[in-house]
């Protein structure tokens, strides 16, 4: 889930584990190098070539902003990046622990709540 919110942004289709996600997890867990820039650019390509009816969200806002801030001098257009009044911030990912009763789909949670405490355990 952490990767779906960071390096390989995905919202929806939570039950799936796509080929690309498998590649990413495999490379990270086995410490095999891969091209992060290629990954970002490929994802950007997918966004900009999709039809207007497809609601693709625009990923990597923080890294794109950082790149922009680095290509011009501080006193130029990038100065806004260093002013807290102008920037927005992405929140921190706070994962729930596996036993957290709020975890999972609401249908599953509702079903669990109907079980006796012993059965739930």
């Amino acid at each position, binding site marked *: 889930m952490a990767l779906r919110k960071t390096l390989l942004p995905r919202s929806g289709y939570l039950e799936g584990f796509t080929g690309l996600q498998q590649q990413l997890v495999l490379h990270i867990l086995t410490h095999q190098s891969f091209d992060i820039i290629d990954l970002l650019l490929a994802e950007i390509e997918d966004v900009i*070539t999709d039809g207007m009816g497809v*609601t693709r969200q*625009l990923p990597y*806002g923080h890294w794109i902003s950082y790149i922009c801030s680095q290509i011009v001098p501080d006193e130029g257009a990038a100065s806004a990046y260093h002013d807290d009044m102008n920037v927005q911030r992405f929140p921190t990912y706070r994962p729930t622990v596996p036993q957290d009763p709020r975890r999972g789909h609401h249908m599953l949670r509702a079903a669990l709540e109907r079980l006796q405490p012993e059965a739930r355990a």
Partner: protein
Amino acid sequence: MDTTVRVAEGTQLQDLTKAKATKVKRLRWAVLMEEWQPQPRDTTVDMWFWTVLQASFYESYRHRGHMLFSHRVLDWESISQQAGGADIESHFAHFRALPGLLEVGQNKYIEDWVRVFYITVWVGQERSMIWFMFGGQPYRLMRAQLAEILGVDLVDVSLHAPVYGDADPPRRALVGGIALLTRRSLFSSINLSLFPTSVHQIFLQIRHMTFTWR
């Protein structure tokens, strides 16, 4: 910048709000950089864009309500806690600068910059470079420059290549074992199973596929 694009009198923006992927690709992907950034610059549109077409894309995106992806940044301690105390950060630490990119310190963004970037960006062949507008100026950055700014290593290993091969964007999610996704890897799997060249290779293949399908 203002949320509405300013254009000179008599300049008409195209309505692209109903454009399908085929049209979008024809307009901004299947074109040369010289077509995406023709000389001279069109001065009848806002300075943030190079052409009327780019300004039209901006307005159409705005009209369709395309949002920024709501990223999260990582707090390694809480991730580790969720994983039962496992040291997750150490896996990411094998990739130069990656942990830093994912951490809380790297969470600032300016929405207008990101929107203008997505509207104006042109990606070079084999993702070798990008061209985009920022602050009213055009910029061209090679992969090496992007890697240097983000502090990551350039490696000749693409994650997309084994999954999608030479497929054109936009690429859709593919579900399945990674060893069997592309024709090439499927072929090599069959090749290894039916025409084994060495026992060691078969062992590696089985181990790889077991890991994949688990």
